[in-house]
């Protein structure tokens, strides 16, 4: 199971916001934003909600779960 996100695209559409600017807005380090974007770190619920607040979108529009089975990517809701 992998947590995907589209933070990078959302940053780009929000006046090309940098990782550092987003990090400053939600009170974390730039490396944390980088790691979340790369899928290396799964944020807490609080942090995910803060990110969704910054972009004005629901959490599920920013984050999604995928299954890495050999059959391919499956949506968790199925």
């Amino acid at each position, binding site marked *: 199971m992998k947590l995907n996100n589209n933070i990078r695209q959302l940053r780009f559409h929000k006046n090309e916001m940098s990782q*550092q600017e987003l*990090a*400053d807005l939600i*009170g*974390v*380090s*730039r*490396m*944390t934003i980088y*790691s979340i974007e790369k899928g*290396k*770190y799964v*944020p*807490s619920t609080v*942090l995910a909600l803060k990110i969704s607040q910054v972009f004005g979108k629901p959490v599920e529009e920013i984050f999604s779960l995928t299954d890495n089975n050999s059959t391919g990517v499956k949506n968790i809701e199925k």
Partner: protein
Amino acid sequence: MKNKRFIRNIFGIISLLMLAYCLFAYIFLQSRLTMELPELTTQLRTIANLTVPALLIAGLYHLFLLVNALKTLKGKFLNSVYIVLVILSGATLLSDLTLLSDIGKEYPLWDVTPEWLLLYAFTALHILVNIWGLIYAQRNYSGNIRLFQQLKSENDTLFLTINHVALLTGLTGIFGIIFAALQLYTPAEYVPQLTIMLAGLALFPLILFVVYWIIKLGRKPLTEWLDEKQVADTALGALISAVVTIPLYVFISVVDLTNLANLQISFWILAVFFTQLSAISTVVIARNR
């Protein structure tokens, strides 16, 4: 700006010349201070005394290098190695005077070669740091940046640098206590003191950095010192460190039960501590690459 750079370079070169003087003074003094010479001559005493202002100038330059390095932190490993060396070299400048003074008192009584070797090693470190500092300050001059200003939004940099420093401290500490335990130049009865002294020296840069960190973040609530990923990385580091030290505990128990080696408790405590420190910081650095 050009004037400042000129003054900075002149300061660095004078400091280097002072260290070169100290090196030549030590070589000259070592050739003269033999057991056949019962007392120091005025000439030798003057040569030795002149190392005090020379080391003072080198000390002031080290202080400049440290402040400049703290203002231009990069979070890069080589940058952290440089800072640790500046701190260690600065701290051992004081030891040089103590060592020289001890040599002056002890040379008619017994062999002082270990003290001379230590003095040369420290001087080599000072000269290395001085040259590196001269080059480093050309490319990384802090200008008008105030000491705690640069890191306002650079939480990553300080966090990573502290972990680099912790790793270097751990490795230096392990090397130091093993060096002391080998009893190369020290009689067995002085090994615990040497172990603790070398461990303290290894810890000095980390203590200094933690103090710097506390001053930098002191106004923030404790819960905001680290963000959640940094806490998670440190926790993972602590878990791995606990696992890594299990074989060490087993080894210590076996050595203790079978009397394989007659090592002091201070050695084992410090060995575990420095191993844990190295393991935690290695994990954190690896997770923040």
